[in-house]
């Protein structure tokens, strides 16, 4: 009997609003089939790419005789090749993703983003894979492009539970190695990892010519840190709790957070990562719309 999975993290209304938008890669992809994305190799699409001089061995059928008539020289007329992409969604499933201040947890929010992106990608014929990055919970679903695979991914997203310390750094390194061809890597995490370690991960991914997107999930309360009395903070990743008076340590907390965000921004810029800070209070449909619109390629 088929398992019934609740997929309330995907809002069909929001998806229908995004129906006219497509997920574009920012760099050429090496796909198996024809698709919506540029390929680094020339192909046979209708879109003209360039002329180049004929060299012996070229297929004479691709000679542009009109150009020969005008210039008395042989030119080969080349066209762009369109291909599909591989979308790998890396989801942080550490305990810290369970943070919820009002109703929505970080993981819930990440599920919505991941599910919607997977749906959009699958809908436009791209392959979709999923990697869950938790120290205790690790799951890897390689990218495939059939509808049944999307169901597997959505099921997995519905099942995933936040627990333990983060395994984001290891998962990112492994993903960089495992996904051999160019792919779009979308990271959904609160990124509470030292920036030095993140820097290595992103450089590794870029070295493998992946198009890396990072959705940095934070809650407004984590930024404001406004508490009116002493508070015992329980570590969601299992560390020792801390009893502190926010009136005393508030300034230092905010300074540490600001320094971290500045450093992270620098790391993202240096590694040319498509970095998005996302507040849980933002509507994820709007976040996705901004993201997709921002990726629409400019006219050549």
């Amino acid at each position, binding site marked *: 009997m088929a398992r019934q999975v609740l997929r309330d993290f995907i809002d069909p209304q929001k998806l229908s609003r995004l129906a006219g938008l497509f997920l574009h890669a920012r760099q050429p992809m090496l796909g198996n089939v024809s698709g919506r994305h540029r390929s680094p190799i020339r192909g046979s699409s209708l879109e003209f790419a360039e002329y180049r001089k004929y060299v012996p061995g070229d297929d004479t059928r691709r000679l542009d005789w009109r150009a020969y008539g005008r210039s008395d020289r042989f030119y080969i007329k080349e066209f762009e090749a369109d291909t599909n992409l591989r979308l790998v969604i890396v989801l942080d499933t550490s*305990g*810290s*993703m*369970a*943070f919820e201040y009002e109703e929505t947890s*970080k993981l819930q929010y990440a599920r919505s983003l991941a599910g919607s992106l997977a749906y959009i990608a699958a809908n436009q014929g791209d392959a979709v894979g999923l990697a869950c990055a938790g120290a205790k919970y690790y799951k890897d679903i390689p990218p495939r492009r059939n509808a049944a695979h999307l169901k597997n991914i959505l099921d997995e997203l519905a099942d995933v539970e936040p627990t333990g310390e983060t395994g984001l750094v290891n998962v990112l390194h492994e993903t960089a190695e495992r996904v051999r061809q160019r792919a779009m890597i979308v990271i959904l995490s*609160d990124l*509470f990892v*030292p920036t030095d370690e993140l820097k290595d991960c992103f450089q590794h991914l870029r070295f493998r010519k992946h198009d890396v997107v990072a959705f940095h999930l*934070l*809650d*407004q309360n*984590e*930024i*404001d*840190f406004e*508490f009116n*009395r*002493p*508070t*015992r*903070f*329980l*570590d*969601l*990743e299992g*560390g020792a*709790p*801390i*009893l*502190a*008076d926010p*009136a*005393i*340590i*508030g*300034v*230092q*907390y*905010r*300074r*540490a*957070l*600001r320094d*971290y*965000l500045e450093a992270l*921004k620098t790391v*993202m810029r240096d590694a040319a990562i*498509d*970095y*998005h*800070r*996302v*507040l849980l209070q*933002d509507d994820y449909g709007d*976040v996705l719309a*901004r*993201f997709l619109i*921002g990726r629409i390629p400019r006219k050549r």
Partner: protein
Amino acid sequence: MSFLQPGLLFLLPLAALPIVIHLLHQRRYRTVPWAAMMFLLDAKRQSRGMARLRHYLILAMRVLSILGLIFAISRPLASGTVGWAIGGAPDTIMILLDRSGSMEQQDLTTGESKRSTALAKLAELLGRTSKGSKIVLVESTRLEPQEMESASNLVNMPDAEGTGTSADISAMMQVALEYINENQTGRTDVWVCSDLAENDWKPESGRWDGVRQGFEGLEGVRFYLLTYTNPAKGNYGVTVDGVERRKLDGRSELVLDIRINRSADLSKAITMPLEIVVEGNRMAVEVEISKDQYVLQGHTIPIDDRLVEGWGSVSLPNDANPTDNTFYFVFADEPIRQTVIVTDDALLADTFRMVATASSDPNLQFSADILSTARANEIPWETAGLIVWHANLPSGTLAQLLETHVDDGRTVLFMPPDAPDETELFGTKWTDWVEPSTQEPFRANTWRDDAGLLAKTQSGMALPVGELQVYRYCKLDGPEVHLASFAGGDALLTRVATDRGGVYFLATLSKSSYSTLATDGVVYYVMLHRAIADGASALSTARSITVGQELATSASEWDPLNKETDDRLSSERPYSAGVFRNNELLFALNRNTDEDIAKPMDAATLEPLLGGLDYQRIEDQVGDESSLASEIWRVFLIVMAAGMILEAALCIPSREQSSTSNLFSPSSAQR
């Protein structure tokens, strides 16, 4: 510190409210699951320094503000360090008031003296702070503790008015000590109001050790010295050193020797009117003073031949100390200056008679009677001014009569007998004769030339005491301080301390085999005539007396001759200058002239006297109107306001705090 609303101090525990709230706040924590622990750990590590200090400062400012408010509404009283030292009303407050003449130095603009300033301030202070305390006054003239109903009486009670006397602070301290011991006064504050004049404090007095030790053994006794050591500016003092009524060329006149001391600016000469009053008749004399002292010697005033006795005064214009501006004198016919010589040595008696009757003043009459020791009981006690006793010291009735003679203010001069016995009189006895071991005679090497029989003459010339040669002298067992002494410390001439009269012991004789007293007659003559004059002064019907001296008659029987002194209580008469008649006796009371040269003690001299006692000195100024204790609630309100402002300043969020809220604007969600 004392308070006008001390009941409100029970609110002081409220100052702990911020701390209590803080502690409760710490205990009432809530638990929050948190993701961004890495920043919390960082913040916790950094907040151990300034941030934590800032937080505690905020807490301290809140406590300070509440304290300031409570103290302010409790209406604290303080004045400089005094206020902080006063720890609430004691059980007993003793006021030792120096009423000496120097305490009457005044501020000419306000007319307030050192004494009146001290009393006014003490009255005001104690009126506010001494509710429930017993107040006891010990003033310097009577040395008797008087319990007072209210501190406000200090300013107008006759027993606290100015006098011309000297004070003895150590004696006052002794009285206070005895009162505290007898009455078990509990926690006691002793206020000493004085100008710290050396002649009043007598730092050399042997009484200080006992007083200090006595107080050291007491718990809860604190001393406050309210001192006024600034000397008066522009003060002049007048003294009449001699008054003589004489007849010259058939006309009667008074001869006055007047001295004016000056402590004002000595650089310029000043002309000053001098008012002389004789029997109510006034006359003015202008004198020009250019140095620190002016002497008007032999100033004559013609008087009626029928005026055989009377009174007068010499006055200066009002200045910084009114007590030394007037000097009273009285005059009368001089009595016969009768000397009685008791000796069995005819040669000595003749020499003595010759010296005693040799008068340098034709207006004075001298007589000398010689009695053998067997006829000593025939001494005319009523008329004899000086008795010279050259025999073994008497005992029994004769000794008692001699003591009565001295108590009447007259004089005895003892000379050593050839064979001294063990009899002792006036605490003194003759011991052995001493002769030099070499041919060199004994000579006096130290003698007092400032007062006594061997003092300098009026012209300032010193007597040639050092030139006297002594071949034999008789040692004395008695006083240790002498008027003249030999190199070994033995006395040549000594005076026994008595309340009245004079008792002298001369250690050698005037015969040529004993000394050169007779051959170098100046010292002998002057010495004997001064002793005769001292003794005769008690016989005169006109006497000049220093205030504070014990008198034989009650002041209530005195008839004041000067109307200005009429309004004083009879009990106060012996302590201020004035002229009075008591039956046949005329007497002029004048200030103690030691007060004219009152020099304040320095801290180094004061410290040994009170060292080891819990005392605090408060230096004040004459005429200063500031209170010893003023309300200082404003200070605490300022403290409270400052605390609140600081607290608010410390609570202002730093720029860093406010800037973090901009880190996540909606536009930053997508870079």
